[in-house]
């Protein structure tokens, strides 16, 4: 059963997703950030579908349980695609777009395979466990890849402020989710997750909406100012 706080957080997250997609269109950044727009469009649609499912089948129903984990895995894959598009943007001048795409597919396939082998031995609820394991592993792979991307951006002295803030906000989001998934594995019955996960969902759309609204596409900043101690 959901209470008013659950609904408030839920609608806030849904509104934030729609708002961020709207900001991308409003700031004429759709062509450059199409995958981000696609992610928020998917997140909004899944948010509405989850709400309808809770209203019809109930929060504790099996249908919602399955839908929640599978839609979460879909969103994680979408986020993975967003990360790859950020990679392609950072390395655009090196002309390695095809290489990035092939590497991403290989990594995605590898993660799915490893997730399957991790749950194959368990006979209980293999279907949901696979979705959960896949999300957890993809979040962690995402953290590592974002860390590598941030390292490459520093090495290449990337100075596009918008790109920097997009990558850093994504890093915070992925790390928070990877950590929370790991903690959920250790403490599955804690009531904290219900609110915490929903609140964490707010971070990415709010941070990215701020970036699209307040940071001009042509804004530049030396990476050293973010990394080295300021004077």
């Amino acid at each position, binding site marked *: 059963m959901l209470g008013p706080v659950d609904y408030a957080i839920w609608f806030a997250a849904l509104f934030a997703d729609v708002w961020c997609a709207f900001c991308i269109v409003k700031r004429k950044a759709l062509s450059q950030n199409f995958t981000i727009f696609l992610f928020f469009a998917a997140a909004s649609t899944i948010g509405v579908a989850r709400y309808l499912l809770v209203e019809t089948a109930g929060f504790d129903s099996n249908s919602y349980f399955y839908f929640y984990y599978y839609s979460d895995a879909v969103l994680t894959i979408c986020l993975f695609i967003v990360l790859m598009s950020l990679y392609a943007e950072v390395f655009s001048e090196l002309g390695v777009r095809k290489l990035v795409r092939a590497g991403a597919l290989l990594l995605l396939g590898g993660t799915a395979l490893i997730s399957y082998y991790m749950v194959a031995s368990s006979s209980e609820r293999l279907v949901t466990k696979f979705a959960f394991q896949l999300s957890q592993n993809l979040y962690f792979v995402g953290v590592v890849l974002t*860390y590598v991307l*941030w390292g490459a951006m520093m090495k290449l002295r990337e100075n596009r402020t918008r790109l920097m803030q997009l990558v*850093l906000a994504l890093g*915070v989001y992925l790390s928070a989710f990877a*950590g929370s998934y790991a903690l959920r594995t250790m403490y599955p019955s804690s009531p904290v997750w219900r609110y915490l996960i929903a609140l964490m969902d707010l971070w990415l759309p709010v941070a990215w909406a701020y970036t699209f609204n307040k940071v001009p596409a042509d804004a530049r900043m030396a990476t050293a100012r973010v990394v080295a101690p300021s004077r």
Partner: protein
Amino acid sequence: MIPALICVVSFLTMLQFFVSYSRSMIAESRCVQLSAEAREICGFTFSTAAGNQFRRLVKLISLCPQRREDNRQVRIVAAYFYFLGLVRVLLNWAMPSASSWIESERSGCAYLAAVVLDRRIAYTRMMMAQQSSH
């Protein structure tokens, strides 16, 4: 064992990303010149700010009419400011040399708060001018 390891690594990377994200916001605000009036109110010299002014500035910001887009920026940097306070307490005995770095970071937070305050004062002035013209 593996979830615990993932948890620790994720927590550490989250801290690193959060610090860099906050620093990118502070660096952005450093490009903005404070008005002479704002410098006087805040008690700053041309480009430096004292970290211990941060709380007072946040209180002053809350007294001005709100500009919604500023709120988020102040909240994130406030979280960073309190995180630095915690780090200072934890590191004071182990690494006393880190305190000068922490102080420079806290002064960056105060500078951002001053920039937001400056913007809000200008916004309030504009609103008052609009009201008086009607």
